[in-house]
């Protein structure tokens, strides 16, 4: 047997091994994609109801007497007026057969708690409405919403159903008369948090996240890049610098909750900074992101070919000039990618923020970095914890929003890398 034959015999085995390896690789990728798809499909289907909202159209008589208002009333008196009265009157008019106290209360809960505020805002906007009768669409209560969207099964026996027969019959009669409609739920994006699922929105959390990230970016990016440049280009090689390097690497591995405790002890208790504020959240998160950005920036700086530094030095550039004119621009794509990865990490972080009180229930939309607020992942956590049926969809919808931001940030990272990347 000559060499060719020996080689030929071993070939089959070698190709087989290669095939097996390729198959295993494809299998693992396929599995990963499958799980990702299941997750996405599950979340998306669950989130869909949160993006639409059921509305009930009612002819409302804005009786000036009942409201105790007229066209010239001050805004303050309008704020204090009880608009519930006219909505209840309208509902009673629809279903005149309801007379019992208990049944009445049940009837009034067809519209959302927010209906009176909706009406109030309309009247404040246009006081001439007072005294007129107008058909107005009100947000339906989350139970009604659930029935319409089919998440409460109407065929179940009454005892197993959250919405009782009487209420169901009202809903069906309203449906028949065409007074019930569904539309896109703008409120989800324009409202803050609420106890009522149909009124709860994500805007507060989105802005809270935004303020937190801005603080994080403003603090961690300059500090981390400066630290990376110093360590990589200027620091003398000695024990002390080695010690610092090791500790930066260790810092990256510290559990994030520890940073939260640190934030609570130092920033809130010692420096008396406001609780639940994006400012403190941002400071804590920047502590956590710093090592990530430093490590990424250092490796980006290290990857800049030494020939570029030598070229600049050879022309008589000072060390500083060679770093800032040539090394930094060349390392920028890597630094930005590292920064965005760090930011994405910060965006998804929950644990340290729990410690500094950003887990509070906050209805108001934050206007600045010192207003109390919450952030997206904590909003998800809060909603997931709520018993109301309507919050299930909201949770999934909030997760979708969070994922959207993460994907968008990664896309920006890729775009920046492509844009600044230069061949040499």
């Amino acid at each position: 047997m000559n060499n060719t034959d020996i080689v030929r015999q071993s070939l089959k085995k070698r190709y087989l091994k290669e095939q097996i390896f390729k198959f295993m690789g494809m299998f693992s990728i396929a599995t990963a994609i499958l799980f990702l798809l299941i997750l996405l499909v599950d979340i998306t289907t669950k989130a869909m109801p949160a993006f639409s909202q059921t509305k009930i159209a009612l002819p409302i008589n804005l009786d000036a007497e009942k409201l105790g208002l007229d066209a010239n009333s001050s805004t303050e008196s309008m704020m204090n007026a009880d608009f519930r009265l006219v909505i209840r009157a309208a509902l009673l008019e629809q279903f005149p057969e309801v007379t019992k106290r208990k049944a009445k209360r049940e009837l009034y809960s067809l519209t959302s708690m927010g209906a009176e505020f909706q009406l109030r805002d309309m009247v404040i906007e246009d006081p001439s409405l007072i005294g007129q009768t107008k058909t107005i669409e009100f947000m339906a209560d989350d139970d009604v919403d659930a029935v319409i969207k089919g998440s409460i099964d109407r065929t179940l026996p009454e005892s197993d159903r959250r919405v009782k027969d009487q209420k169901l019959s009202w809903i069906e009669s309203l449906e028949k008369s065409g007074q019930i409609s569904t539309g896109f739920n703008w409120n989800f994006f324009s409202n803050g948090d609420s106890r009522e699922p149909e009124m709860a929105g994500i805007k507060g959390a989105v802005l809270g996240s935004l303020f937190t990230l801005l603080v994080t970016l403003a603090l961690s990016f300059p500090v981390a890049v400066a630290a990376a440049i110093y360590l990589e280009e200027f620091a003398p090689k000695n024990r002390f610098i080695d010690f610092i390097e090791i500790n930066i690497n260790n810092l990256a591995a510290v559990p994030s909750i520890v940073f939260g405790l640190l934030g609570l002890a130092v920033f809130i208790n010692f420096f008396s900074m406001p609780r639940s504020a994006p400012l403190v959240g941002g400071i804590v998160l920047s502590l956590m992101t710093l090592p990530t950005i430093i490590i990424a920036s250092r490796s980006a700086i290290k990857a800049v070919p030494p020939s570029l530094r030598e070229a600049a030095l050879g022309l008589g550039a000072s060390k500083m000039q060679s770093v800032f004119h040539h090394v930094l621009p060349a390392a920028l794509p890597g630094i930005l990618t590292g920064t965005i990865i760090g930011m994405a990490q910060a965006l998804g972080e929950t644990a340290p923020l729990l410690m500094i009180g950003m887990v509070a229930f906050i209805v108001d939309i934050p206007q600045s970095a010192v207003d109390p607020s919450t952030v997206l992942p904590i909003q998800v956590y809060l909603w997931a914890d709520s018993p109301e049926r309507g919050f299930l969809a909201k949770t999934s919808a909030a997760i979708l929003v969070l994922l959207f931001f993460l994907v968008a940030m990664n896309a920006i990272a890729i775009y920046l890398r492509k844009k600044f990347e230069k061949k040499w």
Partner: protein
Amino acid sequence: MNESVLNELAEPVSRVISKPETEDSLNIEYTATVGQPLCDDAKFSTKNVDVYYADNQAIHDVTLDIGANEVIALIGPSGCGKSTYLRTLNRMNDTIDICRVEGQILLDGKDIYRKKQDPVLLRARVGMVFQKPNPFPKSIYDNVAYGPKIHGLTRNKSELDDLVEEALIKAGLFQEVKDRLHAPGTGLSGGQQQRLCIARTIAVQPEVILMDEPASALDPIATAKIEELINELKENFTIVIVTHSMQQAARVSQRTAYFHMGRLIEVGETDQIFTNPAHDLTEKYITGRFG
């Protein structure tokens, strides 16, 4: 035929006197530098230079003058210290922490390692061209303009434009790139990139240009252009060139210095080194017996 001649043919003389090449036989003859290391109008004058990397001595007691407006080639096998020596001349070795230079290196009679000497100023006077063409990832114009800009050599844009054009013309590149001065320098061919790097160096108007194997990454045509350029540049500059190509050293230089194991073995007129080297090691290296 003469009997003695026949005998010689049967047993060639060389076979009798040749001895096996061993490390010992190569290392024994470290004497003082052979040839003429000194010259009358020295631009650089190095005396008893030792260079250490930590505890490792890379250069041993090198004494060598580099004359004004001459092209001197440093040759020798890999790791012989010629590049290290070159880098001591503009203190590029400063960037290496463990590197230590001893002895005296005088530029126009002044020690460049004296406390008062600013390395940045020194590098503006002693420019360097590297082995691999390394243009900045910027436009051709910006590459050449960078040096004059950081040193503030020009007062306004039009002066800078003129300086850039002059440098490109001197580097023999202007005709090829005049229509795309703002195209990236990295888009040029290897030979053009190297000439761009030379233009960039000339733009600072140094007195000495150090070249570290400037053509080793280039094809023969591009190499020929670089060599032609060196020939033209010697009118205005003193050029020290490290090269692995002995033919290149023979073609471009007036003097040649041969380094071996960190020692300067022989210096002499290039004509003499390549026809009749005085030292046995030089002879062995340039005739291809080791290295």
